[in-house]
């Protein structure tokens, strides 16, 4: 085997005395695809950034030998001790990086073409016109349609997938020997992920470059990488060939990760008697947002953007209706409408009543229909204690409850989601910022459980969580459904979650329901072309 392209020895990174990367070693051969896997906070992104010394206010120690192109007599240089000038020569030319969120990684004030051309001018010394030509060629190679026109577009004029392609074109402008890809597909829709990954694979083969893929998504690793290194708490706990590690994970953490695919554990619809009345029934639901019309006309009236049209569904007690679709398909709008938080037209009944203008009527429905949002960091007010957060529903719906009884109910609700005084001393007086994402999501669930709702609207309840935590939260939701006969309106883009949770599925695209039916029918024999791509990607 030839000399490694990159050899990292005992890399340590710490912020203000707190060590996040605690002595890791790995090496990469030229043209190799290594995946760095771990949960958020495991130090994987910091590892990549510290190779280029792009982390601020951190102290980095260790060595990272990298064989730069045309370096001094082929002697590998230590990236971590190289002078800043020399390192600047390596950045972009020998090692390039693509980031998770292309919207923030591209400068909004310059056209995409200019940004790529700038790299070429700086690194390859190309002239203005030559660099623009080359930029267009690069854009074309990433499969962006009409590359000449797109080169003159600003980042906000491109779609998410096109932006990521432009980022890739920029990173590959100088044919780097090593590409650091930090969660390159996480911000993209499921259907785009496969395309971007395939593109990366093609370009990798053409250029013979090595790729360090940083991700939390095991599906990506399986499909893309040659070797995998698993990170936990700043340590690499296991590394090896992908097939090997996936087949026989050695370390308990790796086993836990491999085992984190959500398991279906729900009461099947099967031949049980059709439950009585549906908890929620919608027919011909339509939601539209006003949009501004340009010109003088816009002074007097506004246009409208129809986010959801012709949506009809019903949810019986104890069942889960899953709604799948990519971002912008209207699934979150549908959720907000079913909560009565948006104006809609059409029929929507919950608990036998329709949303009305009378607050009293709404209160009766609100007691039945509750919501858990995607981001547990923004769905709990940061300045309220756990007790104030959880008891809020009781204050509204059972205002006559005594203090003692209210506290008892709060503790009960917290116990129901697996949080108690025993694990968290002084739990009731704590503030949300002290809890991790999964714990916060439990708090959010306890907050709605306390008023004994019948239907929970779950808006991407686990997509902000790590895979192992996701499995726990889904398990909790399944248990609550079994024990209490709750119904769920589950909104997600993750087919694994749907497979584990849903009884019925609706697939949404561009505001319309393109396919619906029982979960097994839809996922095993998708009839609509869009559903087929969705299923194929998962």
């Amino acid at each position, binding site marked *: 085997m030839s000399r490694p392209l990159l050899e990292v020895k005992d890399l340590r990174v710490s912020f203000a005395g707190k060590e996040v990367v605690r002595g890791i070693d790995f090496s990469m051969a030229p043209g190799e695809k290594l995946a760095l896997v771990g949960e958020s906070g495991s130090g994987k992104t910091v590892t990549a950034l510290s190779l280029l010394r792009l982390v601020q206010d951190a102290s980095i120690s260790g060595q990272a030998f990298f064989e730069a192109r045309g370096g001094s007599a082929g002697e590998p240089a230590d990236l971590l001790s190289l002078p800043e000038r020399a390192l600047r020569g390596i950045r972009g030319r020998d090692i390039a990086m693509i980031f998770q969120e292309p919207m923030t990684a591209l400068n909004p004030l310059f056209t995409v073409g200019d940004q790529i051309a700038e790299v070429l001018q700086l690194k390859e010394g190309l002239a203005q016109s030559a660099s623009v030509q080359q930029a267009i060629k690069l854009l074309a190679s990433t499969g962006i349609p009409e590359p000449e026109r797109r080169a003159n577009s600003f980042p906000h004029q491109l779609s998410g997938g096109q932006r990521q392609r432009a980022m890739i074109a920029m990173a590959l402008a100088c044919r780097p020997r090593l590409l650091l890809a930090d969660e390159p597909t996480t911000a993209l829709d499921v259907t785009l992920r496969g395309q971007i990954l395939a593109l990366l694979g093609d370009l990798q083969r053409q250029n013979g470059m090595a790729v360090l893929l940083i991700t939390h998504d095991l599906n990506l690793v399986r499909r893309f990488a040659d070797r995998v290194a698993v990170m936990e708490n700043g340590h690499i706990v296991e590394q090896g060939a992908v097939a090997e590690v996936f087949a026989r994970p050695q370390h308990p953490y790796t086993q836990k990760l491999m085992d984190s695919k959500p398991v279906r554990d729900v009461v099947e619809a099967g031949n049980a008697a059709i439950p009585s009345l549906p908890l929620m029934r919608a027919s011909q639901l339509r939601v539209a947002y006003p949009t501004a019309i340009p010109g003088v006309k816009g002074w007097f009236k506004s246009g409208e953007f129809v986010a959801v049209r012709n949506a009809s569904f019903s949810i019986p007690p104890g069942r889960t209706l899953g709604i799948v679709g990519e971002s912008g398909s209207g699934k979150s709008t549908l959720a907000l409408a079913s909560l009565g938080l948006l104006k809609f037209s059409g029929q929507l009944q919950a608990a036998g009543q329709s949303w009305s203008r009378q607050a009293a009527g709404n209160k009766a429905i609100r007691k039945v229909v509750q919501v858990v949002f995607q981001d547990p960091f923004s769905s709990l007010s940061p300045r*309220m204690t756990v007790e104030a957060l959880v008891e809020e529903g009781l*204050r509204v719906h059972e205002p006559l409850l005594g203090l003692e009884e209210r506290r008892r109910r709060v503790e009960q609700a917290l116990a129901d989601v697996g949080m108690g005084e025993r694990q968290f001393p002084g739990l009731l007086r704590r503030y949300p910022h002290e809890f991790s994402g999964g714990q916060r999501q439990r708090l959010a669930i306890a907050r709605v459980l306390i008023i004994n709702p019948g239907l929970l609207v779950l808006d991407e309840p686990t997509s902000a969580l790590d895979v192992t*935590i996701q499995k726990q939260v889904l398990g909790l939701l399944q248990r609550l459904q079994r024990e209490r006969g709750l119904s769920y309106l589950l909104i997600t883009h993750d087919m694994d979650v749907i497979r584990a949770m849903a009884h019925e599925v609706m697939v949404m695209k561009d505001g319309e329901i393109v396919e619906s039916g029982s979960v097994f029918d839809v996922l095993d024999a998708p009839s609509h072309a869009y559903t087929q791509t969705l299923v194929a990607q998962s």
Partner: protein
Amino acid sequence: MITSPASVPAPSISPSKRAWQRFRRNRLGYGSLLIFCLLVVLSLFAEVLSNDKPLVVSYQGQLYFPLAKDYSEKTFNGDFDTPADYLDPFIQSKLTQDGNWAVYPPNPYGPRTINYFAKAPNPSAPSGDNLFGTDDRGRDLLAQLIYGFRLSVLFGLALTVIGVLMGVVAGAIQGYAGGKTDLVGQRFIEIWGSMPELYLLIIFSAVFAPSVALLLLLLSLFGWMGLSDYVRAEFLRNRQMDYVRAAKALGVSNLQIMWRHILPNSLTPVVTFLPFRMSAAILALTSLDFLGLGVPPGTPSLGELLSQGKANIDAWWISLSTFAVLVITLLLLTFMGDALRDALDPRKADR
């Protein structure tokens, strides 16, 4: 199933408590707060510190408390039935004879006391009698500064509190309601804000008898707008947050959502601006007094002293000491404001 307990740190502090701890670690800001509070508390006891009446008088075996009660000159065997002038050498000699005694405040002059028995012409330079000298009417400067400082600070505090209350309410309503309410409110603020404040003050001071209350009212009418914009922006941002949606879905009433959920999360700009608003209020009062549009004549005020200093440029002790008091007050407030801003800035590392 259950996450490990070790992942949560033991101590539990609220965000505002954490901000307070960060504020305390800023020594300049915290020191300024302590000094400022000390000065304010001292000035609240100005009557005891600087007064032309003795605190206690023992005259012919009887105790008198001139601070609490007016005694006529006859009480001390004077000739007239007028309130006693304790600076009169005649009365003073009576109070020191035959085992009589009197305890005077550290600075034996009130804010309006005219020292008729000064040895030098007015304004007189600092001397043993008047530590900071006298102004052009023979009033003791130190007494004027103490009472003027108290008035300025209390006025600034009152103006700030009224302005904050009005600003928060106006901003909260605009930000939370949004839409047409917001539109109308914003246009109203634009119109209201373009009124010439100074001319209105001149007109009103010509129509009504000038008083501190009137001034407070007039300045409050215009003092809430800057803050309401910040609060409005915070409310506009926070009402989109998931926790507000979640509360709405829970059926919490709008007032409750504003009060319990959005307001505590929108107070950062309000708190940050408090010291700066207060120093602005003190400055406003001072400049109006300087122009003669402020408090009624005879009230001790820093602005009036400044204009005296301008009129008597050779009496350096007037302008210099007033200037020093103003600078120190405003500097302390600014240091406090800086420290508060740092303490509440989420982007600053928690060191």
